């Protein structure tokens, strides 16, 4: 879980850095609903999650609240892999 967590965190750090946002964030910190990530960034995140973790979101569907923080994303991956 720790490795998965750091992989997810790396994806998010990269995504934020591309937007010029270098501020740190905790695992529980909101990234979408706080406005740090926009819809188009969420799309980028979805693509990265599909590529890295083999998740097909077109099959499962999703809600933005499931991708709002590192912890939310980890929970979603665990649910979809179960």
């Amino acid at each position, binding site marked *: 879980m720790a490795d998965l967590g750091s992989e997810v965190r790396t994806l998010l750090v990269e995504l934020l850095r*591309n*937007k*010029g946002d270098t501020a740190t964030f905790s695992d529980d910190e*909101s990234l979408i*609903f*706080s*406005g740090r990530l*926009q*819809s*188009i960034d*969420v*799309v*980028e995140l*979805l693509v990265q999650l599909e590529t890295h973790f083999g998740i097909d*979101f*077109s099959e*499962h*569907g*999703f*809600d*933005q*609240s*499931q991708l*709002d923080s590192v912890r939310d994303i980890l*929970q979603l991956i665990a*649910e979809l892999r179960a």
Partner: protein
Amino acid sequence: MSLLAAFAVGLALLGNAGWWAIAAFLVLTTFLPRQRRVWLTLGSLSLLFFHTHWPKAAFIRDLAKREQASHFLLSPTFQILGALFMLGLLGIVAHLAGEFRKSFPLKRPLLTLALSYFLLVLTACYAPLSGSGRVVLWMVVVFLGSYFWYFGFTLLDRNSKDPDPYSLQLGTYYPVWALRASPTPFVKGAAYLRKIEAKNPEELAVTQLKGLKLLYWVLVLDILNALFTRFVFGPENASSSVVVNNLLRWTGWELPVHLSVPTLGTAMARNAAGAPFAWYVCWVALIASFLKSLLTASLFGHPIVASCRAAGFRALRNTYRPLESRTIAEFFNRYYFYFKEMLVEFFFYPTYLRYFKRHRRLRLMVASLAAATLGNMMYHFMRDIEYVVQLGLWKAVVGFRVYAFYTLVLGLGIAASQISDRRKSPHTAGWIRDRLWPSLGVGLFFCLLQVFDSTARTTPIRDHFLFLANLLPGWR
């Protein structure tokens, strides 16, 4: 308590007729916060009982009169019971959509719901019905159209691990803070509310203070808007403001000068009548109307978000510094956040995730068009469904071409800006090149696009293009 009192005063000063209802709701959510979501449901149902029994009441009344339908259809008893029946029906659909999520047609419930809605519109238009039967069918169409997007978020919530029960989802349908003002879900659905709800007294206090601060900022904007429109357009076309109106009435004072700039509507009407204003007057009218529309959007959304915050939910603003946007997509996001969020959730993501997976740019283009063009058109067509009864289905569809053109240009603009934005490296060339020029370009795009921002069905599109041409010096 003093914070809530200050909030109620702020709402009253803004001329919000339902300030007392919101204030009563806020007292409950503040002092009994554990039941906050229950109060939300009860508040939403209370508005249905005491405020608006059925959506589009004036339209239904006119139709019933024309069809000589039974007066019972207009009675509060029928409409309240009918609304509860319809909400119960939607609850059954939500339950079935959760139970049978893997099987057709509930695998794609929103698509099924949209197709059912338009099938119902066709039936209402062409079924050999008259009198009360026809009115009831149109009442069902109006109800489904008005609740469509709210219910959509309930269906999305079935993807959550712990979705709220339907009884709590009801609180998100025309919630108290929006006072049944718009079919756009303010603020999104149950999943979002769970995420942004204050979890302890400290969070609640901070959220409420932010709500109060936003509300009093609206009051400042309200005064600025009234003075701006009075100065630019003149007293007869000025925006109404309780504070400014009362101040002027009590003091007998009036702005000594005003520019008497024509409104965009007046300038376009003159143009269509063959007596256009000079090109520079049209430009001033266009820019003034654009600035006014930005203020109007803030004045509409901020009190709703402020009330939502005062109830303990950390909602983002609906309009947030749109003039700072550097791309078309960013402006759309900053100008009307919750409308954009609705389109993104219901159209952009599903399209993006399902189609053209190997073609990234095409994927982005199609998803942007699905949201900003198709979704936008669908929302406004459903919102103004009375045109179908007034003009007939064919004329209502054909007459929609001006707004269809608007959404097409908007969709293409958003797609292009998103594609080009992904290629850029961030913040490289200084303030003027990085911020000023892009912001002016985006402002100009939306300023010009508002020429086509009309959902009326009777103006020919030619008039809109002629007005656009008249903005060029020496056109006539």
